[in-house]
């Protein structure tokens, strides 16, 4: 008659533990592919570089054209037209020379960005 052989229980238990650990690692690997994809999708979707470029240019212009009286609208027309034509984004900015305030608006249908900047010196 066959008898239950209870030898080598340590080996059997270690086998269970190791396989469960491998299972958890597999779940983590499965998640990472999805996370990398969705993260890079959202990074691509957010127009970080466009907003940085506009800010950089507006701050470059603030003393010579933005806050001059009357303001130089040629530069503003350049930026607004180029962004509308090439990047499908609506851009506007205004400068208030008396209070040293600048406001920047950007909207590309998905991301809306508004900034107010005030100099305190």
């Amino acid at each position, binding site marked *: 008659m*066959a*008898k*239950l052989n*209870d030898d080598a*229980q340590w080996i*059997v238990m270690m086998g*269970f533990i190791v*396989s*469960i650990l*491998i*299972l958890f690692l*597999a*779940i983590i*690997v*499965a998640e990472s*592919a999805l996370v*990398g*994809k969705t993260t*890079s*999708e959202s*990074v*691509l979707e957010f127009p970080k*570089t*466009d907003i940085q*470029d*506009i800010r*950089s*240019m507006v701050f*470059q*212009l603030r003393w010579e054209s933005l806050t001059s009286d009357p303001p130089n609208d*040629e*530069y503003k*027309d*350049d*930026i607004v*037209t*180029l*962004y509308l*034509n*090439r*990047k499908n984004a609506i851009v506007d900015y205004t400068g208030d020379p008396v209070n040293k305030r600048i406001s920047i608006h950007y909207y590309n249908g998905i991301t809306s960005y508004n900034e107010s900047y005030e100099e305190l010196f």
Partner: protein
Amino acid sequence: MVNDLGQLYTIEGVAAGILMVVTAYLVISTSTVFTPQETHITDMQLEQLGHDALKLVNTPGEDGTLSILNQSIRNNPPVDFKTPFSQLLNSRIHAGDDTLHYNVTLYYRDGNEVKQKQFADDGSGYYRENAVKVTQLVKIGNDASDPDLWDKIILVEALIWRS
């Protein structure tokens, strides 16, 4: 006859079966088919690298000077744009250069319409590679060699791809 022998073997068999089924399910659901349309991760890296390179050539070396990009658009005197830009795009830490190519176009406003000028490329034509587009704004004074660009803000658009 039902007896209670071999219980450990039975449990082991059932557990191993469940483990194998779950593992097979995980393996199948993990393997993402990487089609040419699903290149978000490489696109993101390429866009970031390209924007960094273009921004770097659009940054003046020191206070009161003009950037390489700005000087090279003015072309007065002519400045080499291709070498530094290509070097920034293609240098790698380990040996051997990367194989990034570029085609840079200038867009500017003339009245109510947007016009374009070809600016620089590295000589390799663009066919159907997966490309990204990065841009920078550049302000040009009235001393550029091309009078079309005088006193304008120009959109520099670089198409970058890896071959």
